């Protein structure tokens, strides 16, 4: 049994993903290993890094390994977000559970199919999102992104999803993390892309381009419909988020893409086997959902005709 100790930074925000990935062991891990995540000095953690840690341990367990979390002196938040429940660890709960409503949606596993709809509705309903446009954006993004995981991830373990509302910052953060094959392998599964020598960054670029899909036509596949896909879902999600003043963060393999209204940034990171998708939606969007969607669709059409 090989012991692997990883110590993530003590402050883990939405934008801390590169630092978090750098602190983790390179995946996939050997089944003959014990991973310990040292969170003893953790001071702050948000939904996205939390989902990454849960997905790491779950995936490692599914490979036959063992995974542990070393907790900080106060671990109520981690417990309240169901981190230990998701990774199958039992810790005494020495506090009274306050209601989740309006604050967060704890970590849960999400499987494709019916749960797409359920996951999207749960987030908006639990967080009691007041602004109708903000709620529409959240439902749209969760619906499309969870749907993508079901089709593309091919993971041994279900994806992990969670969400958190920040009342002071007036934003909602959502994380959807899988330990599947990732963007590059998903594209490489299609004959169209096999000879192109795609990098992880290329694959993310294609993922956010309109009318590009990694899914080949598979007759008789009941879920993917057997007739191919539009390849426009992630593009529209990304463009809607920019227009309403939100953020999108994608990581797969050793590439990350962060898009905000101020611009986009690529980084090379320690590899993540699978896909990390995080996004934030402001409580008061800069533009209505309807207008943002119309602009995103118009842009998709324009790019198609280039």
């Amino acid at each position, binding site marked *: 049994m090989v012991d692997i100790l990883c110590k993530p930074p003590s402050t883990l925000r939405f934008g801390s993903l590169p630092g978090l990935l750098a602190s983790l062991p390179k995946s996939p891990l050997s089944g003959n290993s014990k991973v310990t995540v040292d969170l003893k000095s953790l001071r702050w953690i948000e939904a996205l890094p939390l989902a990454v840690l849960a997905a790491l341990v779950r995936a490692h367990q599914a490979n036959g390994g063992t995974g542990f979390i070393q907790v900080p002196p106060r671990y109520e938040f981690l417990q309240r977000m169901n981190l230990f429940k998701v990774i199958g660890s039992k810790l005494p709960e020495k506090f009274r559970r306050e209601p989740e409503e309006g604050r967060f949606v704890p970590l849960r596993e999400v499987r494709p199919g019916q749960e*797409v709809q359920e996951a999207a509705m749960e987030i908006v309903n639990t967080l009691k999102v007041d602004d109708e446009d903000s709620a529409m954006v959240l*439902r749209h993004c969760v619906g499309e992104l969870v749907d993508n995981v079901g089709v593309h991830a091919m993971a041994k373990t279900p994806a992990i999803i969670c969400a958190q509302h920040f009342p002071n910052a007036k934003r909602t953060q959502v994380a959807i993390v899988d330990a599947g094959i990732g963007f590059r392998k998903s594209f490489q599964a299609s004959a*169209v*892309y096999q000879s192109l020598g795609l990098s992880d960054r290329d694959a993310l*670029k294609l993922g956010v381009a309109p009318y590009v899909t990694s899914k080949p036509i598979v007759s008789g596949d009941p879920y993917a419909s057997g007739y191919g896909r539009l390849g426009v879902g992630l593009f529209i999600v990304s463009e809607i988020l920019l227009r309403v003043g939100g953020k999108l963060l994608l990581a797969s393999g050793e590439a990350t893409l962060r898009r905000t209204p101020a611009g986009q940034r690529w980084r090379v990171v320690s590899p993540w086997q699978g896909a990390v998708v995080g996004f934030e939606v402001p409580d008061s969007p800069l533009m209505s959902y309807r207008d943002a969607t*119309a602009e995103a669709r118009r842009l998709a059409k324009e790019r198609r005709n280039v």
Partner: protein
Amino acid sequence: MSNDHAMRVVHVLEEFGPFLLGRPIGARIRERFFAGSESEWPDEIDFTGVKQATESCLDEVFGVLARRVGAARVLKLRTVATGEVRDALDYVFGLIREPPGVPSKADIERILGRRSQGKRRRRAAG
């Protein structure tokens, strides 16, 4: 004998609720209303009361049908909807009318910001 038949109208809201998100629910709608032969399909799909429908859901209903039986038959279907759902339907039906092609190798190279070998050679020669 008359060729007239009563118009068959189906109401999406009653069975599927006001939010139609992602492909699985689109597949359920398609299987519920369009499982039979084309002659048994409804004439009108009424989305009244539905508040939100994603492109992927509507493509799973109408796009899949179009790819299966041809665009002309699907474009004959009447849809009733307003607001965001009308917008999404118009977008998806627009794609059925003019389907986006599968990107060529040159398209992919362009998206990736790579210059094709041919262009490079021509530029070097010119």
